[in-house]
């Protein structure tokens, strides 16, 4: 017996809950099931852009190697290398206009440098003579951020403020796969979507959060699928395919700029080095996995395709390598001089105006330093 057959059933009409309105269709928010790729697909390639990407990748790789070497020499306190992830780092820098803002994590020195930041300023945090080595406002690069995912709400707030002001500024925030588990990730994405803030979130899924593999981090179909729950589009991209990352980022930035709201992008990549120089990656992963990823190296992929297509030749390869060496030599030189330390700066900008209490403490330190100098 069904309800239709019942006496009086026709009279019974449950009203639909009035607050329930069919909301956004989730379908367009869902990422593709496989990471988006350009290389190897036969897609048309812009030669100038490709050569620029290639040169930056080579430079970036060299930057990572040099910074790691400087760490071994004791010139940096620590270096979290982005070797293997250069396509993401470089594309993130190139996707932005000058007026846009970049919100990097501790691993994204390279993105900041590729954006034009002086390498010494970019490395100051990791050298250890100060925290942030540059003026974030001047470069529109937020301080390299260590507490995971905390930079994401900053990006949302800044993008929102810019939009309220009528500036067509976009904020691009970088975060790791591990960082997506933090509450701040959730809150930032939700605020962004509710406010339709012009912000793009790029998750570099490099397979690990220190020693913890992605499988212990999430059970989601992909990190990009998290977008659906915020009502923003999710994109999945091969993070070692530089033109693909560049394109997907470019589309998301353009979308944000024209008022289309935020996008969450997951770039699938791999951290080739240990978490930092202080980490021992052999404790949690085998070399076979690392070797397999070597075959999917972002530089190798791009170089292979550009060479195959005749867009790059030996001379071009040599020129890129040489430019990278020049950069590395300059960096070595700059970093091999002792930084001038400014102990009194400890007190200088704790508050806009120094309190009496801090003046006393500063005086104490000054006296100690003078006594030492004598």
């Amino acid at each position, binding site marked *: 017996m069904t309800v239709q057959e019942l006496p009086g059933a026709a009279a019974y009409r449950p009203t639909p809950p009035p607050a329930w309105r069919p909301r956004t269709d989730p379908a367009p928010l869902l990422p593709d099931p496989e990471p988006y790729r350009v290389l190897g697909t036969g897609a048309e390639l812009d030669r100038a852009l490709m050569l620029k990407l290639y040169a930056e990748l080579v430079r970036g790789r060299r930057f990572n190697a040099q910074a790691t070497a400087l760490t071994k020499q004791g010139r940096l306190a620590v270096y979290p290398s982005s070797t293997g992830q250069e396509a993401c780092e470089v594309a993130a820098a190139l996707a932005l206009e000058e007026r846009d803002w970049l919100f990097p994590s501790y691993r994204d020195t390279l993105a900041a440098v590729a954006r034009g930041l002086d390498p010494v300023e970019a490395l100051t945090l990791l050298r250890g003579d*100060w*925290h*942030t080595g540059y*003026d*974030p*406002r*001047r470069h529109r690069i*937020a*301080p390299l951020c260590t*507490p995971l995912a*905390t930079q*994401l*709400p*900053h*990006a*949302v*707030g*800044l*993008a*929102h*403020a*810019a939009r*309220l*002001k009528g500036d067509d500024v976009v*904020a691009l925030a970088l975060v790791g796969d591990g960082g997506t588990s933090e*509450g*701040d990730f*959730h*809150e*930032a994405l*939700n*605020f962004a979507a*509710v406010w339709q803030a012009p912000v793009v979130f790029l998750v570099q899924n490099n397979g690990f959060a220190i020693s913890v593999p992605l499988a212990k981090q999430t059970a989601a179909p992909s990190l990009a699928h998290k977008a659906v729950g915020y009502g923003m589009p999710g994109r999945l991209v091969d993070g070692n395919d530089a033109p693909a990352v560049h394109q997907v980022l470019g589309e998301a930035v353009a979308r944000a700029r024209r008022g289309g709201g935020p996008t969450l992008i997951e770039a699938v990549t791999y951290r080739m080095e240990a978490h930092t120089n202080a980490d021992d990656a052999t404790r949690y992963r085998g070399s076979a996995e690392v070797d397999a990823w070597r075959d999917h190296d972002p530089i190798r992929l791009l170089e292979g395709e550009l060479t195959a297509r005749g867009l790059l030749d030996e001379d071009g390869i040599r020129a890129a390598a040489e430019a990278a060496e020049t950069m590395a030599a300059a960096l070595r030189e700059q970093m091999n001089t002792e930084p001038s330390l400014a102990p009194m*700066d400890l007190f*200088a*900008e*704790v*508050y*806009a105006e120094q*309190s*009496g*209490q801090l003046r006393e403490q500063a005086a104490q330190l000054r006296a100690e330093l003078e006594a030492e100098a004598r």
Partner: protein
Amino acid sequence: MTTATDNTTARRADKKPATMAQALQRAMRDAMAEDPTVHVLGEDVGTLGGVFRVTDGLAKEFGEDRCTDTPLAEAGILGTAVGMAMYGLRPVVEMQFDAFAYPAFEQLISHVSKMRNRTRGAMAMPIVVRVPYGGGIGGVEHHSDSSEAYYMATPGLKVVTPATVEDAYGLLREAIACDDPVVFLEPKRLYWSKSDWSPESPAPVEPIGKAVVRRAGRSATLITYGPSVPVCLEAAEAAREEGWDLEVVDLRSLVPFDDETVCASVRRTGRAVVVHESSGFGGPGGEIAARVTERCFHHLEAPVLRVAGFDIPYPPPMLEKHHLPGVDRVLDAVARLQWEAGH
């Protein structure tokens, strides 16, 4: 001095009683009218005007972009405020209750308090975090915490708390104008306290960092702030019967701390009691007693005593009166100031 008194009386004439909640509202309203970069954000601050109505009318007057109902996430609220400040805005954030500011703790400690210093002054954080705090309003658990010890222990923050309607207005204006982050602690149980105060001619206030002697006296100093100021004033009145003439110092600002005013008073009286509602152990009173003792040791006839909330989780509504330091406990402490020893 006749003229001054006359003037005061004359000014009083156009004044009508206002509550502390209204004075706070007015402070934000005036700041928003003067400075378009001032933005208010938080849970229920817009349409509702806040659960204590402190932001009442702001969304209507300035629009929802200036006074914004956010999604329900305190770290997100303070985190986005950081980003807004990075772009040049002056966010005024409301945390709905003391204990509900804890989710934002990491943003406050690791970013808000440190940003100026870590960027060598390039990036200021002119953010005000308004926190209704303390008990005495019959709130169920998590609605009555005195969390000032956490903020005091964090370099880079200023920590301010008004005890009068006038200060509520003045200190909040100062806090919003301040280029440093200010945790602005609003004593919940004083929200409905009244004063003949007119928003049209707000009294000029001292800049943040100045304590004030609320009552002059010669026997001993009660050092206090926020919700405990009225308690101490009442205790001082009651103490007259016992022959004690108590001075009451309202700190107004816990950070920066006004050593000058406090120590001048203690040096005069030779005895002091710190009074606050927050737990005693690890609470503000320890710092205050220690620094006063460091500076006034040879003026002290007795150790600086502390009257504070017990070292327990905040009690349920029906029992909170047993926890809150009241007039009797203050007087008990005053009695223990070793009067036999001299003076």
